[in-house]
C-alpha cells in the first residue's frame, strides 16, 4: 500500500459506529448547558512557580553508571543494535557505541550513535531539506526495545546545540522490560559541553535521591568513526518505582512528578536545569489552563509577546498580538521575559527559542 493510500485510509476508513456515544454526548451537553448560568469572567494568567531548592540526599553518590559497573562494550565498537533497527533511514552508517554499562537490576545498555542520511526531498515538498544527520539512542541488547526517543541532529542544529542544552527530556516505562530499580528510563539530548548530569527525584520517604545516570559525548574520535561533524551528547538515567507504584494521572505522578535534571560542564558549573517533574505534573494544569483559551502559562504568554513582533501575516498579527498585549497588561513582567526569547524566521516558520533551551515553531501567517 502506498503512503498516499495509507493517509487516505487513515482519514476515511470506516470505524466502529459511535452514533450512540454521540447521542449520549449531545444529551449530556444539553443537560450541562441548562444546569449552568455561569457569569462570563476572565481568569488570571497562570504564573509558573519557581521550585524551592532541595537538599540532596545522595544515594547512590553522583557517579556515572559506566564508572560504577564497568564498560561492557568499548566506546567506538560496533553497537549490538542491528543497523536496520537504527535510524531506519534511507541509508546510514554502522551504529557504534558511545557509552555502555548496566542499568540497575543488571540489564546492559548501550548509548548508540550513527550517521543517517536523509533523502533530499523535491522542491516544494513537505518538511526540511535532506542531508546527513547524527542519530543517538539507548539500546538494551538483552531486553526488548523500549520506546526510548531517538534523536537526530544535523547541520542546522549547530547553533541550537552551541550552548548549554538539555533538550527533549523524555522517559520510557521499563515495566516488564527492565528491573523495578530501572522502572523509568530517562533520555535527553545534550549540547557537547555538558559533561555530567544529575537526575534527582523524591522518594517515598520524602528524600531527594540522585539517580544513576550516564552520558555519551560525540567527540572528535567518534565523529571521525561515524563520518559526522555534529557535536552533541546524549544522556540516560534510571529511576526506580521506589514504592510509589503506578500513577493514575499526571497529578498523581509519584516519582515522575519530582524529577529534575541538571547539566554541568567539565568545571562542574551548572549550565542548565530542567524541571521535568514540574512540567510533567504541571503540564496537566497548564494544559487545562491552555484549554481555557483565556489563560496561558506564563512562559507561553511571554513567547506570544515575543512572536508578536515577527508575526507579519494579518491573521497571525491579529491572533498573536491581540492576545499577547492583553496578557502583558495584566502582567508587565511578561515584557521583560519576552526580551529573553529568541524568535527567528525560516521559510514561513517562526522558530521560538525559550531561555531554557526549549523551542517550538508556528506559521508566520504569510
Amino acid at each position, binding site marked *: *500500500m502506498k*503512503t*498516499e493510500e*495509507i*493517509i487516505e*485510509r*487513515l*482519514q476515511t*476508513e*470506516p*470505524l*466502529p459506529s*459511535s452514533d450512540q*456515544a*454521540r447521542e449520549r*454526548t449531545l444529551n449530556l*451537553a*444539553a443537560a*450541562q*448547558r441548562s444546569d*449552568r448560568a455561569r457569569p462570563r*469572567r476572565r*481568569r488570571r494568567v497562570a504564573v509558573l512557580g519557581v521550585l524551592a531548592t532541595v537538599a540532596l540526599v545522595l544515594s547512590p553518590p553522583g557517579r556515572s553508571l559506566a564508572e560504577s559497573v564497568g564498560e561492557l562494550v568499548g566506546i567506538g565498537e560496533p553497537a549490538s543494535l542491528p543497523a536496520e533497527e537504527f535510524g*531506519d533511514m534511507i541509508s546510514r552508517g554502522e551504529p557504534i557505541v558511545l557509552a555502555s554499562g548496566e542499568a540497575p537490576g543488571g540489564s546492559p545498555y548501550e548509548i548508540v550513535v550513527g550517521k543517517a542520511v*536523509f*533523502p533530499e526531498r523535491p522542491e516544494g*515538498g*513537505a*518538511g*526540511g*531539506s535532506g542531508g*546527513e*544527520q547524527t542519530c543517538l539512542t539507548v539500546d538494551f541488547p538483552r531486553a526488548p526495545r523500549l*520506546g526510548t*526517543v*531517538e*534523536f*537526530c541532529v*544535523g547541520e*542546522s*542544529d549547530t547553533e541550537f546545540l552551541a550552548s548549554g542544552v538539555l*533538550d527533549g527530556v*523524555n522517559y520510557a*516505562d521499563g*515495566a*516488564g522490560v527492565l528491573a523495578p530499580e530501572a522502572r523509568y528510563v530517562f533520555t535527553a*539530548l545534550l549540547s557537547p559541553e555538558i559533561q555530567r548530569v544529575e537526575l534527582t527525584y523524591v522518594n517515598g520517604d520524602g528524600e531527594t535521591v540522585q539517580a544513576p545516570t550516564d552520558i555519551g559525548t560525540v567527540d572528535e574520535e567518534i565523529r571521525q568513526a561515524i563520518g559526522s561533524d555534529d557535536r552533541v551528547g546524549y544522556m540516560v538515567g534510571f529511576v526506580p518505582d521506589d514504592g510509589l*507504584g*503506578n*500513577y493514575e494521572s499526571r497529578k498523581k505522578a509519584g516519582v515522575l512528578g519530582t524529577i529534575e535534571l541538571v547539566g554541568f560542564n567539565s568545571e562542574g558549573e551548572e549550565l542548565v536545569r530542567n524541571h521535568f517533574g514540574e512540567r510533567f505534573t504541571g503540564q496537566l494544569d497548564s*494544559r487545562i489552563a491552555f484549554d*481555557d*483559551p483565556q489563560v496561558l502559562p506564563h512562559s507561553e504568554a511571554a513567547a506570544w509577546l515575543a512572536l508578536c513582533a515577527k508575526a507579519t501575516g494579518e*491573521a*497571525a498579527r491579529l491572533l498573536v498580538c491581540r492576545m499577547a498585549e492583553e496578557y502583558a497588561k495584566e502582567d508587565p513582567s511578561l515584557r521583560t521575559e519576552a526580551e529573553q526569547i529568541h524568535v527567528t524566521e525560516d521559510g514561513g516558520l517562526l*522558530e521560538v527559542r525559550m531561555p531554557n533551551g526549549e*523551542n*517550538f*515553531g*508556528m506559521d508566520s501567517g504569510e
Partner: protein
Amino acid sequence: MGKGIVQAVVPEAKRDEALPSQPSGPDAALVEAARSGSDRATRELIEAHWDRCYRAAYLITRDEQRAEDVAQEALLAAVGALETFDTNRPLGPWLHRIVVNRALDLLREEQARPQALGQQGPHHLASPAGGQALDAPVAAAMEALSPDDRAAVVMRYVLGYRAGEIGELLDMPEATVRTRLHRAMEKLRNTLEVGHEN
C-alpha cells in the same frame, strides 16, 4: 531545528478547521450562538467535531469504548467552557489537544495497570472494534506503533498539524517528530505489506 531535518514526502492531510493558524471560521458563529443559549448551536458544534475527535481517539487508543469516552470528554469540556472561549481562536486545536492528551493518558494508565497486576504486556489493548468485522486494515496496522507514534501520525495525517506543532504538544523536538513520523509511516507500510502477503 529545521533545514537539516527531513520528513517523508507525502501529501498533506486535509487542513480544514483543525489548522491551528487559521481563523476560527464558521465555529465562531456557532460558539456565539451556543453562548447565547442556543441548544441547536451547541448540538451543531458537537456534531461538527464528533467524527474527527472520535477518529483521532480511536486511531490512538485502538479501542472503541475508550475512543468514545475521550471524544465525549473533549466535547463536553468544550461546551462547558464556551463562555470563556475566544472566538478569534479556532475550536479544533483546543479540542484536539484534549483528545490527544486524554487518549495518551488512558494508554499510559492502561500500560501501568496490567503490569501492577502481573498480567499482560504494556501495549496490550482490547481488540479493536469490539469484535466487529471491519474492513479497516490501516486502523488495525496502527497497533504496530507505539502510542506516541500513533498520536504523531494522527496529528499529522488525520488532524493536519505540522511537525513543530506536534512536537509542542507531545513535548519532543520537531526533528524527533519528523523522524518518528517517517519511521511510523514506513512501519505502517511494512505491516500492511506483511498483512497483505499473509
